[in-house]
């Protein structure tokens, strides 16, 4: 894709989306219009600011279409950029899901084995349960990203992931009884 064409597409897309937002989204998703009459007076309504914001976006889109491009600016994403994005999003989503659910899953297993009769919510401030999700999810995130960059999975990456989560527990959790590590505020 040539640079000109990429900019045209970017600008056009921006203008179209901004207009759609102004005409369809903002009116249907704000409680008051651009101007409201309340208590006998005119006031600025909730739709005013978003309409102004999207107008700026639309204007920006027009400028991108017409203005001269400087060297080095390109609106094009390469296929390799897109591949990276997909993989990266996958790694991230997997890690956060592990962070959220591995603790409760472990507690369910422990319950089945008769090790505890509490729920994860009851144990969200109890060692070691409260660290399980963070350690598993955090280590996964660091390990997979390091492995992706290196092109192979190594034990060294796993070790660094574990060390990083332990260090973060030492910094954020041990000194502060009221702070919650992920995912313990969500349970």
């Amino acid at each position, binding site marked *: 894709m040539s640079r000109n064409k990429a900019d045209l597409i970017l600008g056009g897309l921006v203008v179209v989306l901004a207009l759609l937002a102004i005409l369809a989204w903002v009116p249907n998703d704000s409680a008051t219009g651009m101007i409201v009459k309340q208590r006998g007076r005119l006031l600025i309504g909730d739709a005013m600011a978003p309409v102004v914001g999207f107008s700026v976006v639309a204007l920006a889109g027009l400028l991108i279409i017409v203005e001269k491009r400087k060297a080095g600016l390109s609106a094009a994403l390469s296929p390799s950029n897109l591949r990276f994005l997909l993989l990266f999003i996958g790694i991230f989503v997997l890690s956060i899901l592990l962070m959220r659910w591995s603790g409760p899953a472990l507690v369910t297993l422990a319950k089945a084995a008769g090790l505890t009769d509490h729920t994860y919510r*009851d144990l969200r401030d*109890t060692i070691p349960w409260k660290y399980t999700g963070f350690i598993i999810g955090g280590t996964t995130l660091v390990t997979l990203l390091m492995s992706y960059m290196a092109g192979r999975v190594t034990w060294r990456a796993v070790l660094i992931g574990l060390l990083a989560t332990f260090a973060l527990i030492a910094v954020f959790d041990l000194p502060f009884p009221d702070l919650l590590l992920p995912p313990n505020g969500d349970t």
Partner: protein
Amino acid sequence: MDNFLKPLALAAALALAPAASNAGDWAPPGPITMMIGFAAGGGADTQARLIAQGIEAKYGWKILPQQVTGNSGLSLAAELAKAPADGTAIGMVVSESLTYSALAAGDPNLQLDKFTPLATTASFELGLVAMADGAFNSWDRVAEAAKAGTPIRFGIASDRQADVAYLFGKSAGIDFNIVPVKGGAGVMNGLRGGDIDIGWVAGAQSKAVQQGEMVNIASGIPAKLKDSPDAPTITDLGSTFYLDGYFMFIAPGNLDPAAREALGAAINDVLNDPATEAHALVAKGFGGADVITGEALDTKMKTLLDNAAELLEKASAN
């Protein structure tokens, strides 16, 4: 060192905690999440955190405070409604959130009857405030200036305050320029910067009034203000509504009555014990503890709800 050992000690305590049946020995089945509907660092936030500290110290219940701000307390209500009703999730808001704001927003899942009120902590010391050395430092001067045709900028921090200001102005024959600002701090900054002339402040003005920088030109509650016993109440001046209200704790609806009683008693206990920091803060910054629990609280909330419904009707009729 204390900090490092605390989680371990609590874990041990938790493992030993027996299942409870009546209020006297009710204990939460796990840590209690305390949602705070106010910005971190402000007076109301500090109040909530000190109450949490007091309960932890007195009862050994672990409390985990977290901020859930926005939308006049309705964001907190929405979050709390999703939490289990077993006493392990409570929230601190103002009474206005579940009365006026809930009614005005109209979401059927966020109405007062979908929640369990636990206890009030302190009542508003709400005043109509102006700069002490300004042109509007008494109600007479406000009324005079308005008669002479000077537009008067009236700072408000919520829709309820705007409605009361509007109806108050109507009954006094004044058409205020009602200026919506962010919170009581926004009103006070606006007064200092000369951007607004008068405005409602629900207690944060206390220090400025005591130091002579600002004055309460009227009381917005059905009593005289502690800082300004000479200021008339707004009903003396023609208003038919007050802006009274409370800081209060709530829990999800259908809370176990034993949990409700135990939590209410714990809050009452901490706030009325002169040895706690929470007591000291509320005495200094909020005009003293004002704890209402149980059926008395239900009655109080019902009255506030009825007033709010009437206010909404009157204000929108125009």
